[in-house]
């Protein structure tokens, strides 16, 4: 664990986010330019004011020149960051610490992914050369390993379990329907979700996040400078990331009803932010609902629900927009779509809008503390990121 967290040292003073969708007529450059300029304008600054930048993308470009080439920035330091599906969050974390250190006063973070030019369905990653014996398992299948294990441990039959998972997708679709930037702005009935074509049993296509193109961006400054830019910045209270050694697929203790990296990242983030009871103290969360069983175990890993109780909280609506702890108010990866490098920043974007009262139809009462959770990898081995952000200095 870190000795010293980020607690309130930096703030976000500008954000931008493109619509997430199949952008057939836009390139990765187009998306980066749109998100970056929206964030710069929102912060009331120009590109020349940016002293350093981070670009997060899993596969839509290599090196910092991915961003400098699009923006034509003037020889400032730019670092390209990759941490699988947590790439956008990782870019944000690196920029935050650079600003906190005093090395730079103003940093720009951009996350982008252009998935739909590949011609493939679903997510495809470039593997390093190897012996080629790793199982050819897809992302939905690797996360669906959680489902039978969870059902088995807590005594849910397949139908009950499927209902719980569908209820999560139902909620995220309902939230996304209220979001003009979401990929899928459409409510889905429980029946439609439960009967959607199987992708990785028991998961159907509607248990899976949307495959989309998109970009999101943030401008970060130190807290003491933030009022120069705006009255209502978003305060960064905790940033944690845990990279697992992979014991989940090496030893038999791991039972696939939890993701250890989530638990470790949450412990660290709560410590940095001084949170004792996440179920009560967190007002809203954006979590990595890549597939519905992931969101279910996240509730328990992050302490939003007791172990074995997450499925009941799903059924009683605790995480709905109108519930005690709304999760994925913007529709989540499920409905907003999942352009890998952009997703972590998109989650922060929703926090930012909610704090500023700009979330329109999905605006929550008056949230003060929000959490974003972003995961890259597999249930048995991943990087898990958590941020805690707030409306006020604490």
């Amino acid at each position, binding site marked *: 664990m870190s000795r010293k967290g980020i607690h309130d040292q930096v703030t976000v003073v500008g954000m931008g986010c493109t619509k997430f969708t199949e952008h057939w007529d836009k390139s990765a450059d187009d998306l980066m330019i749109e998100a970056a300029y929206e964030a710069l304008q929102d912060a009331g600054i120009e590109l020349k004011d940016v002293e350093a930048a981070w670009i997060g993308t899993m596969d839509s470009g290599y090196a910092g020149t991915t961003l400098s080439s699009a923006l034509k920035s003037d020889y400032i330091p730019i670092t390209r960051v990759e941490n699988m599906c947590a790439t956008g969050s990782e870019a944000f974390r690196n920029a935050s610490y650079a600003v906190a250190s005093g090395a730079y006063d103003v940093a720009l973070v951009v996350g982008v992914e252009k998935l739909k030019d590949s011609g493939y369905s679903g997510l495809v990653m470039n593997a390093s*050369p190897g012996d*080629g014996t790793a199982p050819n*398992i897809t992302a939905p299948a690797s996360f669906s390993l959680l489902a039978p294990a969870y059902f088995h441990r807590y005594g849910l039959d397949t139908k009950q379990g499927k209902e719980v998972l569908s209820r999560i997708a139902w909620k995220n679709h309902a939230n996304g329907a209220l979001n003009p930037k979401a990929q899928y702005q459409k409510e889905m009935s429980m029946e439609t979700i439960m009967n959607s074509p199987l992708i990785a049993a028991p998961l159907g296509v509607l248990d899976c996040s949307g495959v989309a193109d998109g970009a999101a961006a943030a401008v970060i400054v130190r807290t003491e400078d933030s009022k120069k830019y705006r009255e209502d910045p978003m305060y960064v209270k905790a940033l944690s990331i845990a990279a697992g050694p992979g014991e989940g697929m090496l030893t038999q203790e791991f039972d696939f009803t939890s993701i250890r990296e989530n638990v470790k990242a949450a412990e660290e983030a709560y410590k940095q932010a001084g949170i004792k009871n996440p179920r009560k103290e967190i007002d809203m969360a954006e979590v990595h609902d890549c597939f519905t069983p992931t969101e279910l175990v996240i509730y328990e890993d992050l302490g939003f629900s007791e172990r074995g109780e997450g499925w009941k909280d799903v059924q009683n609506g605790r995480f709905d927009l109108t519930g005690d702890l709304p999760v994925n108010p913007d529709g989540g990866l499920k409905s907003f779509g999942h352009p890998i490098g952009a997703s972590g920043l998109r989650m922060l974007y929703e926090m930012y809008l909610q704090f500023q009262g700009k979330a329109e139809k999905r605006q929550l009462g008056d949230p003060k503390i929000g959490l974003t959770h972003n995961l890259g990898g597999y249930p048995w081995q991943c990087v898990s990121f958590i941020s805690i952000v707030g409306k006020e200095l604490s």
Partner: protein
Amino acid sequence: MKGILAYQVYLPHHRLAKEEVASFHGSYGGKGTKAVAHYDEDSLTMAVNASLPFRKRNPKAIYFASTTSPYQEKLSSVTISKALQLPASTRTIDYGNGLRAATNAFLSGLDAVEEGPVLLSMSDRRFTKPKSSLEDEMGAGAVSFMLGEGTGVIAELIASAHISSDTVSQWRTSTDVFIRQWEDRFVAHAAAEAVIACANEVLSTAEIALDEVDHVVISGPSQKLSINLTKALRVDSKQISAMKDNTIGHLGTANGPLMVSKVLSESKPDQKILWLQVGDGCDGLVLKTTEELTSYQSDHPLSYSESTANESVSYSEYARWYELFEVDEGRRPGAPTPSAPALKRNQEQNIGLVGSKCESCGQNYFPKQRVCVKCHQRDEMTPFSLQGKKATVATYTVDYLASCVSPPSIFAVVDFEGGSRMLAQVTDCKPEDISIGIEVEFSFRKLYEAGGIHNYFWKVVPKRGDHHES
């Protein structure tokens, strides 16, 4: 005394009905089925699976016989040797280019047993052109023999003879996929000529008459012609009980050995077997069972077993598995070419199924590790084999999206006796056959071919019988 010490048959899990083949082509078919290889099986994988029980018998040589080796140039016997974790000094020899590869390898193997036991594996997955007369009877399977000398012999070689005949009857060019065959009646005529001459020769060497033979095994160019040859030779129908199977089909080089194995599983000591192997002539062998056979049979009830193998498949499944037509690969990437250096670095692990054990805390791993995830000791690992370890499913998934010739792909998190765990592909399994807690066992399979490289590895299958090492 030289001869067979042990035998093991490996048959694929799936059967294709002759009626199904005929119905696909719009005609009427006969009764019976043939064994078909799953999409991830070839001659080499089946040979490994048939040879696994002999891992601990320390063969000094591996002989592999097949007309359908996965490579034109690259030895399969070497991979079998590696899969059995045998030392690199083990002799490795491949035989091919015709059905008599089986008897050639058998006799050469017996010539070599003075230096130690020889493991001989005969395996074929034969390809026939759709609608050809051979299509509904050319099967797939493997038989392995341990050959040796001395007291352990269960069937002793009494005599052998050879007749060669340079006849164009059944053949393939170096680039042909499908077997070519001349008109049936000519093929039957040429084969009969060789079989009769060879039988006379070998019986005279053995100094016995045909009616003194207890079991006759004739492996001809096809099942139908093999039966015709018994008539040409005027064999009594009670001598050919092992030839009457109608479920497995013709197994190529493994065809004669399959029938010999059946005889060995059913016969008594001191019985004589005449094995006539056709192919550019004929090889004839007379074997005599020994007193050892009785105890071998009771100790190894599954050396010859068809029990696990009876799932029927449609012609369309068969056609996909045998790549009889080109299918769209879908909007997913194909398998990348495996890296040759990486294959070499990991061959003990991937082909031998050897992981590692932490000598500091006792935790086992597959794949092998350098640093222990439990006690964090570095380089305290020793090799640890997973072969034969009890394995159960911790959780699983049925993947409909993964690119696969036989979808859906099933993957399971498998926990092994001894504490290790791996994510394994489950094969020969339907979605309804998988659940948490079931026992599975390893089967050697081909993952895919890319860049001209067949990538072999282990998958798991639901445990269906009580296989044990012998």
